[in-house]
C-alpha cells in the first residue's frame, strides 16, 4: 500500500493509464471513423456506379440496343474489379445479361439493385442487380487490425522501456528517501553526497545534502552548547547552594543577633525605666525618710517621757506604739521600693524567705483587693546567691499573673501558695494558684517576648 501511494507509483500508473487510454481512444475513434468513412465511400461509389449504369442501360433498352448493353456492361466490369456479379433482366424478369454467379456471393458483398425505367414512356423496362465485393474493405480492415496489433506491441514495448526509464529516473529519489528516513544527525547513516545532476532530483538531493550538513553542524553546536550549559548550570547550582547555605546561616545568625538586640533593647528599656523609678523612689524615700524619722523620734521621745514619768500605759501609749510600728513598716516599704528599683548587676547572698517577703510586700494590696489568700510555707532559713532584685521582680510578676488568672477564672477558692524547700543539690521556690493553670500551647510560648494572654492589657514582657 505504501509503495502504491508513492509518487513514483502514481506517476507510473498515471503514465500507463494515460497512454493506454489515449491509445485506446484514438485507435477506437480512428478505426470506427475510417471504417465508417470507408463504408460510406464504398456505398457512395457503388451507388454512383449503379446510378450511372442504370440510365445507360435504360436508354439502350429503350433504343432496343441490347448488344450495346452487353458491351457497355463488360466495359463497366473491366473497370470495376469489386463487381462480383451483374444481372440485367427485362420487364418480364428474363435475364438479358448475366455476369458472374449472383447466387454464390449471397452472403458476401453488397447487393444493389435498380429498376430500369423508360423516362419517355414512364414504363418499366427491366431491372439490374449488381453485387459488389467487400474484399477490399475487409482487406483494409485486416491490414488495419494487423497494423494495430503491431502498433500495440510496439506501444507495450515502449511502455516497458518508459517504465524502466522512469524507475531509473526515480531511483535516486528512492535512495534519497531511504537515506533521509535513516538520517540521524548524531550518526553517520546518511551517505549521500552532492551530485552534478541539474534536474529536479539533483536539485533536491543537493538541497538535502546542504540541509543535512547544516543540521549536523547545528546539532554539534547545540550539543556543545548543551554540555557547556549543563556545566554552567551545575557550577551555578553549586554556587547557589553555597550561597543559600551561607545566607541561611547568616539569616539565622542575624535572627539571633536581632533577638539579642531586642532582648538587650528590652532590658535596656526595663533597666532605664527601673533606673528612673529608682531615682524617683530615692527622691521619694529621701523626702519621706525625714518626716518619718522625725515622727518616729517624736513618738520615741513621747514614750521615753511617758516611761520616765512612771505613769501607767494607757490606750494612748498603745496607739502611739501602733503608729510607731506603722511608721517603721512604712520606712521599710520605702526602703524596699528604693532597693527594688535600684539596678544591681552583681550576685549577692540573700535569704530566700526575705526575698519572697519583699516580693509579696508589693502585691499585698492586690491580694487584699481581690480577697485572695496567700499561703506561705516551707523552710524560712534558705540562703541563695542570686540577683536579688531580679528574683523579687520574678516573684512579683508570677504572683500578679496568678492573681489575674484567679480573677479571670472566678473560682470559689482563691489561693496562691508559695513554698520554699531545699535538697542536697537544689533549692526550690514554687508558686501555685487556683486559677486553672496554663494550657500546653501557652506553656510552650510563655517565655516568648511579647506573647501575652491578656490582650491589650498585657505586654508579653513579664516573664
Amino acid at each position: 500500500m505504501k509503495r502504491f501511494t508513492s509518487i513514483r507509483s502514481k506517476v507510473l500508473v498515471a503514465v500507463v493509464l494515460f497512454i493506454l487510454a489515449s491509445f485506446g481512444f484514438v485507435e477506437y475513434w480512428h478505426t470506427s471513423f475510417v471504417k465508417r468513412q470507408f463504408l460510406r465511400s464504398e456505398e457512395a461509389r457503388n451507388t454512383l456506379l449503379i446510378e450511372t449504369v442504370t440510365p445507360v442501360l435504360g436508354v439502350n433498352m429503350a433504343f432496343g440496343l441490347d448488344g450495346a448493353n452487353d458491351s457497355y456492361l463488360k466495359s463497366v466490369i473491366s473497370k470495376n474489379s469489386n463487381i462480383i456479379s451483374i444481372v440485367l433482366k427485362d420487364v418480364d424478369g428474363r435475364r438479358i445479361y448475366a455476369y458472374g454467379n449472383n447466387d454464390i456471393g449471397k452472403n458476401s458483398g453488397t447487393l444493389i439493385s435498380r429498376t430500369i425505367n423508360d423516362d419517355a414512356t414512364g414504363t418499366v423496362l427491366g431491372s439490374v442487380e449488381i453485387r459488389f465485393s467487400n474484399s477490399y474493405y475487409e482487406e483494409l480492415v485486416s491490414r488495419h487490425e494487423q497494423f494495430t496489433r503491431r502498433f500495440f506491441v510496439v506501444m507495450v514495448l515502449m511502455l516497458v522501456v518508459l517504465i524502466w526509464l522512469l524507475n531509473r529516473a526515480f531511483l535516486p529519489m528512492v535512495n534519497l528517501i531511504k537515506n533521509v528516513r535513516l538520517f540521524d544527525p548524531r550518526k553517520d547513516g546518511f551517505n549521500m553526497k552532492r551530485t552534478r545532476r541539474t534536474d529536479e532530483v539533483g536539485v533536491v538531493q543537493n538541497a538535502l545534502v546542504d540541509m543535512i550538513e547544516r543540521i549536523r553542524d547545528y546539532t554539534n553546536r547545540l550539543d556543545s552548547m548543551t554540555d557547556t550549559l549543563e556545566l554552567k548550570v551545575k557550577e551555578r547550582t553549586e554556587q547557589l547552594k553555597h550561597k543559600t547555605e551561607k545566607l541561611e546561616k547568616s539569616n539565622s545568625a542575624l535572627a539571633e543577633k536581632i533577638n539579642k538586640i531586642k532582648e538587650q533593647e528590652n532590658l535596656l528599656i526595663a533597666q532605664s525605666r527601673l533606673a528612673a523609678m529608682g531615682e524617683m523612689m530615692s527622691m521619694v524615700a529621701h523626702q519621706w525618710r525625714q518626716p518619718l524619722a522625725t515622727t518616729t523620734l517624736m513618738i520615741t521621745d513621747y514614750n521615753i517621757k511617758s516611761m520616765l514619768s512612771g505613769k501607767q500605759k494607757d490606750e494612748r501609749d498603745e496607739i502611739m506604739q501602733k503608729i510607731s510600728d506603722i511608721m517603721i513598716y512604712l520606712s521599710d516599704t520605702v526602703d524596699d521600693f528604693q532597693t527594688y528599683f535600684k539596678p544591681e548587676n552583681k550576685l549577692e547572698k540573700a535569704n530566700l524567705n526575705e526575698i519572697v517577703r519583699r516580693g509579696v510586700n508589693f502585691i499585698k494590696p492586690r491580694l487584699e483587693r481581690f480577697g485572695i489568700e496567700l499561703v506561705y510555707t516551707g523552710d524560712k532559713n534558705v540562703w541563695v546567691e542570686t540577683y536579688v532584685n531580679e528574683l523579687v521582680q520574678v516573684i512579683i510578676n508570677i504572683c500578679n499573673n496568678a492573681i489575674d488568672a484567679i480573677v479571670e477564672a472566678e473560682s470559689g477558692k482563691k489561693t496562691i501558695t508559695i513554698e520554699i524547700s531545699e535538697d542536697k543539690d537544689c533549692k526550690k521556690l514554687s508558686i501555685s494558684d487556683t486559677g486553672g493553670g496554663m494550657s500546653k500551647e501557652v506553656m510552650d510560648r510563655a517565655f516568648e517576648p511579647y506573647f501575652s494572654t491578656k490582650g491589650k492589657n498585657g505586654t508579653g514582657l513579664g516573664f
Partner: protein
Amino acid sequence: MRYLLILIMLFSIAGGYSYNDQLMQIYAKIAPRLVLMSKMPYVLPKESIDITILYEKGDERAAENLREKMLEIYPKGLGNRKLEIGLVPYSMSEKLKKVSLLFLLEGDADSVKAALDFAGKEKLLTISYNRKLLSQGAILSLYIGKTVKPFLNLEAAKRSDIVFDSVLFKISKIYSSKGSQ
C-alpha cells in the same frame, strides 16, 4: 442468278434504294426518343412530336413503312405527346416546314444537301439513314459495328445549338470529320 437478275430488274423499274428492315425498326424506335433527349432552338409543340421523313420518289413505300413502324412502336405517342409524322419527297423540299426532327432517307446528293442546308439554317435536328450524310451535316445516324450505336455528329449539333442528354453520349459513337471516335 436468275433471281438476282429479276431483283435488279425490279429495282431498276422502281428506281428506289434498298433499306434494311431491322435498321428501319431501330431508327423507328430511337428517332422520336432522340427528340426528347435533345434541347434545340426549335420549340416543340406542347402535345406532339412532329417528324418529317424526306424520301426520294421511289422510296415512298420505305418512308411509309418507317412511319408505320414509329406509330406501331409508339401508338400512344411518347412522353404524353402524340407523334405527328409527315412524309415529304426531296423534290418538294423547298416546301419544308420547321419540325422537331427531319428524317433523311436515301436521296441524291443535291436534294440531300438542300434539305441539310434548310435544317442547318433553321437549326433543326436531323437523322439520316445513311451515316455518310453525317459528313454533309446530318446530326445523327446509326453506327453499325460489333454493336449498333447511335452515331452522333457533335460538330453539326454544336452548329445548330443542339444539346443532348449526357446519357446519349455514353451510349453513342461520336462522329468527327477527322475520323470517328
